[in-house]
């Protein structure tokens, strides 16, 4: 990477404590003069040290230092007495004044007249590369929002009518309720459950359970009948294999004969309904089932029980 290479060369030059020759050549070609004791910190923090280099700092790293008072920085950055060396190379005053050089922290000298400003783009680029938070950012302007030269028209824009207002009000009311519930630590949950209730016609139904805190709201799910009401025209299995068998059997019964063949004996039996074929009337303990009645139903002889398919 050329950028990294360049940074490494700058660091190497600063470690030698003298201005590298390539920098001199650059500035000479550009009409710039450069002090001989330029250090890497000067490049990083944007200030050029005119005084002789101080001993290495004994303080914490420069990133943790608080910025100096703004008056100092403003003064250093915008001193009108500094003559420009070259009108071409004089940059504009930096937007973000540079923080003090950490190598100056032990320096008790009064503030010196500001030197010619260092090239801010250079320090900015380095600070961005090293992610120095206290360092000045580059002077690149923020990219403005892209202007839509041909903005797309919104397709669903309609003139607000009364219904829309009502809907908006209802939505706002719901949102307020929800927020109020959330403030009390209550959360709205929606759960779909399958409920079996033998007292209802479709004894098996899907319900939607909306719970908010201790309050319950129960509603039937749309198309809630998940048993007994099958649409045969769709031809899709919806309630399991047994339901399919019953359906097929019913079809076969209508098509073929009005009776059923008893599976054990092969005798043709005429049954009124498909649902309760062999079942006896529910016996109560007080009204015992006649032996003969149950025997015809329950009689599974040993030979038949042994039969394996």
């Amino acid at each position, binding site marked *: 990477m050329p950028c990294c290479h360049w940074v490494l060369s700058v660091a190497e030059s600063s470690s030698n404590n003298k201005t590298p020759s390539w920098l001199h050549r650059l500035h000479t070609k550009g009409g710039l003069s450069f002090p001989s004791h330029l250090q890497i910190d000067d490049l990083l923090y944007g200030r050029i040290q005119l005084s002789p280099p101080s001993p290495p700092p004994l303080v914490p790293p420069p990133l943790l230092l608080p910025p100096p008072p703004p008056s100092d920085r403003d003064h250093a950055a915008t001193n009108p007495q500094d003559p420009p060396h070259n009108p071409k190379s004089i940059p504009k005053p930096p937007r973000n004044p540079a923080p003090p050089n950490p190598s100056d922290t032990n320096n008790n000298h009064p503030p010196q007249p500001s030197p010619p400003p260092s090239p801010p783009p250079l320090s900015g680029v380095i600070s961005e590369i090293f992610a120095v938070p206290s360092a000045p950012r580059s002077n690149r302007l923020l990219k403005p929002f892209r202007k839509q030269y041909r903005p797309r028209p919104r397709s669903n824009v309609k003139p607000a009518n009364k219904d829309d207002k009502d809907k908006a009000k209802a939505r706002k009311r719901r949102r307020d309720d929800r927020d109020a519930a959330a403030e009390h630590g209550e959360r709205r949950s*929606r759960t779909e459950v399958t409920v079996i209730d033998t007292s209802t016609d479709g004894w098996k139904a899907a319900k939607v359970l909306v719970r908010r805190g201790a309050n*319950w709201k129960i509603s039937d799910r749309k198309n809630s009948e998940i048993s007994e009401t099958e649409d045969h025209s769709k031809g899709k299995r919806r309630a399991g294999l047994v339901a399919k068998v019953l359906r097929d059997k019913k079809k076969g019964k209508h098509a073929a004969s009005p009776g059923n063949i008893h599976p054990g004996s092969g005798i043709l039996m005429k049954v009124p309904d498909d649902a309760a074929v*062999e079942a006896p009337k529910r016996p109560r*303990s007080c009204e015992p089932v006649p032996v003969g009645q149950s025997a015809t139903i329950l009689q599974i002889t040993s030979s038949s029980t042994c039969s394996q398919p």
Partner: protein
Amino acid sequence: MAPLRGAKRRKKVAAEKKAAMAAAAAGQGAPGGDWWDGFCMRMAGTLSPAADAHRFEFLFKMPRRTFNYVCSLVKDDMMVRASSYTFLDGTVLSLEDRVAVALRRLNSGGSLVTVGTSVGVNHSTVSLITWRFVEAVEARAGHHLRWPDSDEMAMIKSKFEKIHGLPNCCGVVDTTHIIMCLSSAEPNCKVWLDHEKNYSMVLQAVIDPDMRFTDIVTGWPGSMKESSILHSSGLFRLCENGVRLNGGKLMVSDGSEVGEYVIGDAGYPLLPWLLTPYQENDLSDLKVEFNKRHSAARTVALKALARFKDTWKFLQGEMWRPDKHKLPRIIHVCCLLHNIVIDMEEDAAMDDAQISHDHDANYRQQVCQLSDEKAVRMRDRLSEHLNSS
């Protein structure tokens, strides 16, 4: 010896299967052979010696006659694809084998693997057979769980009056919790968290004096209270509209009438058709007597639900993340089987000493303070009538 591969392996498997089928056919053709003998041989390693005397009832929680009746009910549905389920040795499961596997799954409380290993089938076969059985019983045995007609209701009322001293009582309503294991990461799992911090599904049942279910509601999550479940049930709607419990009225001592009613514990509201006990502290003798008879009659429900959960241990054990849309159907089928067993019993008298009264262990009694003014007056009149009669 190196394992067989390719055609040799396939040939060996086919030969083994053929031999197993031949053996099964030979057993089938034996004149004195019974299905139960073969099944006992398969389960010989897993049967406990103590169960030898009543081995069949120990295994299936029902007598052989009832088992045969269940087989006849589900025969057409269970044998749709007769050769689709086999034992591990390749033998095809007969109808009785399939019903036995499903019943073992529902009443043993064991896992699919445990049940499969005990009877010698793959665990996935156990799962498929059990679900087929549930569908079949659901479709074929619905008439075993229904609201009694007028004649049956007259019998129920006379039994409650004779045994517990409560005239015109038509049943006991109670609730139990079917506990599940859910992951806390599961969406909306808190809905299933009941007041005792268990994940559960609720079963509400109306029970007659023979411990038979006459009405059930299940599928609601455990966080719902008894009163909420009752309020959302078809029973509530029908009773409020006068479609149910609209039979003969009881003429009490002061000349007024008391209609048909069911009784429930303090977790239910006091309604004209649902009488709950007095909950005050200082009760008169009349009220104490009413509470005493009320409590005695309610033991029927406690026993029935305890027996139900003790028989169908699938529901008593803590299921790991069950399908909450399938579980109500399994509960319903267990209720149907519970009623079938009672319906087929020769002697309805149960050994009370063996039946626990605690179907919801460690659950505190819920309390509902709602009461209807008309119901309060009706309960007072009934208390006076009990004392005078």
